[in-house]
């Protein structure tokens, strides 16, 4: 029976294949000409509240699931580490979470959180620290008590501090085990050299940190006016604001923290080389870039997309991976922060093609400053950014946190509403201008981590070499 049914089909196939093998008029519509229904969406707006002590709160109700999310952002990160105590921000965040509070030990907190399947995390980045809470609605009250105590009344238990230090030191001992991790870490040091953001923790600096350092750091940065909190989920707005009043009212304001000075402009373009045995080199070429608040951040976002962050069709990926087949990971990234921005381009390639790839990477970057991007490229990049914008609103947690971050970074409240319009308004001249201004050959910071002996061309043919050691 199967044969009977298949036979005519096979005959047909035999007849059609040589004639038709993909050459007949395609039955499928041209994907470029598909028509889509309009997309309308008005994202919910979180409510903004300022408590009496100056703490700002964003609240967004969402009854879909019986859960509550709380996200806090604090102006305190490794950029604020005192000299010689690098690693302090990170350790403070770590031990706030593990070291207990005035009413519970760290172990009791762990036990309660894990038994109720709730989670609290505290961590420190470069310019900011954050604290997050996820909890089932039924446990919100008691877990929120812990969350607020961790922020206001942490106890930096000595034993937990020693453990945190030991774990960090072990982590630092292992930095060079994976060459890419080593490369991106060293790149921060050289890109931000002379700025606190370029001072990273070492085994020695972590070893020096004591309990009173953590207490001091907490006291200096964890302040009502230096923190913002977003709450979303299955809560009643009024009730939750009351709850915050109750828990945080006694937290006194002791002023505001001023951001650390942005990294200074570069006046040279050294090539740093770090020796590491292995089959591949990690190549990073970076520049300081527009801060988030700058009008330049819009054309620069498009520039970055076209040059290397816009997926397979972006220039670096297209050239170094698709055309040349010389890297699996390659592209660029741009992040506009408060007071400064950072752009990096990278490729990981076998030692024997290091010179070829570095030369091509530099050429792509310089070309962006000398020739306008194509009209088609710009349209593609704008459409991509404008069309994917909707994903910034894909959960209420994201919406509330995002609105909080806008205020935290001092951006105008209509930042999101005007974002797409400002992207659309960018033209090819704007992109050329920012490329010429920020991706200047004489301000590039270049780092190559690999084994020079196997390179296809000596690095010295690219410029002045500064050999560095990772320790």
């Amino acid at each position, binding site marked *: 029976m199967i044969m009977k049914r298949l036979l005519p089909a096979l005959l047909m196939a035999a007849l059609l294949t040589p004639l038709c093998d*993909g050459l007949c008029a395609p039955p499928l519509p041209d994907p470029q000409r598909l028509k889509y229904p309009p997309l309308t969406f008005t*994202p919910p707006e979180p409510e903004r509240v300022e408590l009496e002590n100056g703490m700002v709160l964003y609240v967004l109700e969402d009854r879909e699931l019986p859960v509550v999310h709380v996200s806090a952002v604090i102006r305190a990160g490794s950029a604020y580490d005192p000299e010689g105590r690098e690693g302090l921000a990170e350790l403070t965040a770590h031990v706030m979470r593990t070291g207990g509070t005035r009413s519970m030990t760290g172990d009791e907190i762990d036990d309660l959180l894990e038994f109720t399947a709730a989670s609290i995390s505290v961590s420190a980045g470069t310019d900011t620290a954050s604290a997050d809470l996820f909890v089932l609605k039924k446990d919100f009250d008691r877990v929120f008590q812990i969350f607020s105590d961790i922020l206001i009344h942490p106890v930096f238990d000595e034993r937990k501090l020693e453990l945190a230090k030991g774990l960090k030191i072990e982590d630092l001992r292992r930095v060079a085990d994976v060459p890419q991790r080593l490369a991106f870490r060293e790149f921060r040091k050289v890109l931000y050299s002379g700025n606190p953001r370029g001072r990273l923790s070492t085994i020695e600096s972590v070893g020096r940190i004591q309990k009173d350092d953590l207490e001091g750091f907490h006291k200096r940065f964890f302040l009502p006016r230096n923190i913002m909190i977003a709450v979303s989920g299955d809560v009643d707005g009024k009730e939750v604001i009351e709850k915050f009043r109750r828990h945080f009212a006694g937290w006194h304001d002791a002023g505001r923290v001023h951001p650390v000075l942005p990294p200074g402009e570069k006046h040279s373009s050294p090539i740093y080389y770090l020796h590491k045995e292995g089959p591949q080199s990690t190549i990073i070429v970076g520049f300081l870039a527009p801060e988030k608040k700058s009008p330049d951040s819009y054309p620069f976002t498009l520039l970055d997309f076209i040059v290397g962050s816009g997926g397979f069709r972006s220039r670096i990926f*297209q050239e170094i991976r698709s055309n040349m087949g010389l890297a699996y990971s390659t592209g660029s990234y741009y992040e506009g922060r408060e007071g400064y921005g950072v752009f990096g381009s990278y490729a990981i390639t076998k030692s024997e093609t290091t010179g070829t790839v570095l030369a091509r990477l530099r050429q792509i970057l310089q070309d962006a400053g000398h020739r306008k991007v194509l009209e088609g490229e710009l349209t593609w990049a704008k459409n991509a950014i404008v069309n994917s914008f909707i994903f910034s609103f894909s959960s209420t947690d994201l919406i509330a946190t995002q609105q909080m971050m806008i205020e935290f970074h001092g951006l105008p409240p209509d930042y999101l509403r005007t974002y797409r319009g400002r992207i659309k308004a960018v033209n090819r001249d704007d992109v050329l201008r920012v490329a010429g201004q920020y991706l200047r050959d004489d301000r590039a910071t270049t780092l190559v981590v690999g084994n020079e002996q196997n390179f296809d061309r000596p690095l010295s043919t690219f410029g002045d070499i500064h050999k560095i050691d990772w320790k």
Partner: protein
Amino acid sequence: MNDLNLHQEQKPLVFTLLFSLLLAFLCFFGPSHSLAYDLEKKVLKYELENGLVVLILERHISPTVSFYIRHRVGALQEGDGSTGAAHLLEHMLFKGTKTIGTKNYRQEKRLLDEIRKTGNALDHERLKGEQADRDTIDRLLGKLRHLQSQAKALMVDNEIDRLYTENGAVDLNASTGQDVTSYHVSLPANKMELWARIESDRMMNPVFREFYSERDVVMEERKQTIESAPQRKLMELLLATAFKAHPYRRPIIGWPSDVQSLSMDYIEWFSRTYHAPNNTVIAVVGDVDPVKTLGIVKKYFGTISRVNLPPLQITAEPPQQGEQRVELVADANPYLLIGYHKPTLPSFDDYVFDVMDAILTRGRTSRLYRILVEERGIAESIDTANGLPGSKYPNLFAIMATPRHPHTAEELEAAIHAEIEKLKKEPVSLRELEKVVNQFRADLIRDLDSNNGLASKLSYYEAITGDFRYITRHIQVVESIKSADIMKTARTYFVPENRTVATLVRREKP
């Protein structure tokens, strides 16, 4: 093979049942969001006539939608000598189709055929190794380069990615596993047709442009993610040691010499054979109308022909009969992996291993974290994983541990064994079991918060177990597990002769 027959015989019944389910769904379940979110009722399951299974879940949080396509194929189906084929195919499916990525397919096809012949001849010569003729290689290489540059002029590079990104896609990616190959993307909800247009086309009409340079890219991928990452290389070694006969012994990315000589012919056969609709599960989760979604899926995927899947002859792993130990010497700090053979889901033991996984390493209060990291300070990190490297066949329960200097891997290993022994001898407390149940319950709720995560889970378990409801029923089995079950499973599988230990040893500087 048995599964396959059963599936086909049952098909008409399944079809009818599913169709009534569809009607029931449309009549009784609106898009309301009750607190008691009943996933089983909210997911619409439908099987097309060509065997393609579609899962649809409405969520109206934002006007976005996530798509997952899972083909029930992976490294498992590769022949020896052709490891890495499933993964290279996954890369090749981003190179376009007969109608996407070309300026003139008729002309392009002629060149691609020439490229294939030349590439085959080149690989053939190279595989002779020492006896290869240098001049022949150079001549073929020159010819290949010439053809490639001609072909380049006729293609529109990376067009699938461009179309997706231009239309606002995020999370665009694909992955290859031992059992399953997956293609996923999230789009603004009004762009569903673009997804259907591209994905159905690349199932039917893939064109392997830039084959040889992409093979080079995969070689770089291997150097980057395995050769330069000692802990991952150690995992490759653990699996190659623990499995002697079953295909799970082979790395998904492939052994270097295999990848270097994978042929277009084999990849094409692999694609035609295994990316069949009757070997595929699709999940659509987000702000969609199920009826319209089904209409679009039928329109684009419904015309793809069913394929007779070749019988899958998988060598069963014979029982291990003695501990196996292996070392990797590398320029890196020590690291330790321990693997025990065990049955896979949906056997009861597999659920017990899920529970032990949580008891041992989930969170700061888990046994191994508390003892090894906090109390004794001999580990920097400790983790376990149930079900490596795949879930379709019996797999491993793995323990991954990082010793904290100056403590050694040996010291850490002994401490781990001591804790494992306790699972065999002392009943786990009720509170510990209750904690695990609470955690799994909360996971279920937490997972509901993401279109992408839901689409991933629904399609994965549908592809592996044949029923996405594994996700919701998992918790019921977990709730039934008693401390005696844990002792029994631990005693059965956590025995030295069932164990493989892999250690990363630092290379001594000369």
